[in-house]
């Protein structure tokens, strides 16, 4: 199963919210994937085992897996486009 990572400063509020929303949206599209909220501090190690990274905080380090704009899932602005992008990556 493909693994999707969402990270925020503490992993308590926004990353959890985005992860649960993305999980719900993917389920509606009948796409199975593991969506996880993580603490930004552990991103470096976890990212190596992930297929997609959903970004909601500015990241200074280089990320060599596809990146999705997570703010779209919070505000709803551009959500459809980001979801389609995510689905395309997960369907590969």
């Amino acid at each position, binding site marked *: 199963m493909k693994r999707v990572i969402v990270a*925020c*400063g*503490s992993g*308590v*509020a*926004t990353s*959890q*919210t985005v*992860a*649960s*929303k993305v999980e719900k949206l993917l389920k509606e599209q009948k796409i199975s994937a593991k969506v996880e909220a993580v603490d*930004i501090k552990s991103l470096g190690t976890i990212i190596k085992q992930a297929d997609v990274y959903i*970004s*909601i*905080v*500015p990241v200074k380090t280089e990320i060599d897996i596809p990146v999705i*704009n*997570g*703010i779209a899932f*919070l*505000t*709803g*602005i551009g959500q459809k486009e980001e979801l389609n992008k995510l689905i395309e990556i997960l369907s590969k």
Partner: protein
Amino acid sequence: MINKFKEDLIFMDYEAVDAQDLFNKITNESSVKRYINEGFGEAIIARENKYPTGLDFGTHAIAIPHTDPQYVNEDAVILIKLSKPVIFRDMGLDSTDLNVEMVMILLVKDISSQPIFLEKTISAFADYYTIEQIKTAINKEDIVNILHKKYC
């Protein structure tokens, strides 16, 4: 549905020159002090500087500052209607100054209830009609009622 808005944590026509000033003032309010513990003020300012929380909805912008559960005694939300907009940076990229008129400081103790609550809250505040209703509300009770309807 959980509603974490409380009348004593709603502040109307609040004045602040910038985000730091807002955090300093609000953490000294007696009603707020019951919900937070020592270190909350410093923690939330440091967190906002590193990971800003401004959200742009196109028609308006809000900010949802928050910090670690260790600084919080009880789950709640501090809602602040500012008399003049204060600048917050955008959450995703930290690349834009947003004029924010409404700030919700999330006091997170119980992590498990956060996702549903925050999703509902953000969708309520994304709706410009709701924002207008809150903006024009004269008393705190009306605001709690407006928000309560969103969580039923």
